[in-house]
């Protein structure tokens, strides 16, 4: 029992350290913005865009040249006083919805947003049915025990 707990703790620690190590290894030197507000908006924006070359990474995490160019472009737009929405619209107008890690809810992306909900609903219905069936079985067991006791 103790060894099991120790082993699981060890695995969690190992995974955590791997996670930390990998994020440190891939961290990109952040480009500074003149004010903390702009810095926060900049960081939020670059974490929300996909790097088009290494498609599972955000612009914030990607070390490729194109991502650096895009970060510079976003920085320039922020410094020019563009709103977050204007910057997002610009990126979508050039690269399509694919560049957004969180695509908007439009007709084209509706299935993307709705499918998980539909699957969850099916799962909940199935789980409820099974639980109800088991509960009914358990109830009859208890009744039998009561009879035996009496």
């Amino acid at each position, binding site marked *: 029992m103790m060894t099991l707990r120790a082993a699981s703790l060890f695995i969690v620690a190992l995974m955590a350290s791997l996670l930390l190590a990998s994020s440190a290894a891939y961290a990109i030197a952040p480009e500074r913005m003149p004010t903390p507000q702009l810095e926060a908006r900049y960081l939020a924006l670059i974490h929300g865009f996909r790097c*088009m*070359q290494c498609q599972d990474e955000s612009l914030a995490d990607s070390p490729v*040249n*194109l991502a650096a*160019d*895009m970060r*510079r*472009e976003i920085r320039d737009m922020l410094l020019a006083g563009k709103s977050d929405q204007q910057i997002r619209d610009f990126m*979508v*107008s*050039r*690269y*399509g919805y*694919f560049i957004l890690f969180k695509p908007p809810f439009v007709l084209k992306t509706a299935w993307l947003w709705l499918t998980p909900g539909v699957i969850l609903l099916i799962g909940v219905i199935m789980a409820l049915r099974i639980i109800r069936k088991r509960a009914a079985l358990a109830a009859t067991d208890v009744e039998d025990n009561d009879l035996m006791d009496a």
Partner: protein
Amino acid sequence: MSRVTRFAIPLALFALLVVVLAIGIRQSPEKDLIPSPLIGKPAPDFSLPSLTEPGQRVSSSQLRGHWYLFNVWGTWCYACRMEHSMLLKIKQMGAVPLVGLDWKDDRQDALSFLKEQGDPYATIAVDHDGTEAIMWGVYGAPESFLVNPQGIVVYKFIGPITQQDWDQHILPRLSTSAAPAAAASS
């Protein structure tokens, strides 16, 4: 009845899964080719320094009124070198002028490469810092955009153009769309 549904539901779910995965597998070869939102829209306006003529600029306004194939390349790009002989062939055919965008390249490297291998381009714009490539939604080289006389992006080809790609994807768009425009102008 319940025995039937007990088999029918998992079977139906399995069939659904098969359909979804089949669609996924069928589309997987084009997974890396992200459709451009610029198709059917005006090509980005630009005015950039010319690679071959120092002090001159290449601008989108000069290109209005005729077809051109906007080709994004760089000497650092291996696939562009593979594509180069096809570009020379396109030039030789005279089907459509090639407008190059020398992307994040060294000027001297680019000039000596063209001197050695031949220059297929009618004109070449320099995108030294990569800003113009972002305007076109470029995410790799080579990429080619077919632009019509009205300045509308008709088609985007991602990757090195082969003879087969030219015959199948680019030439048909050029001839079918060019015909009415030519008829209208004459």
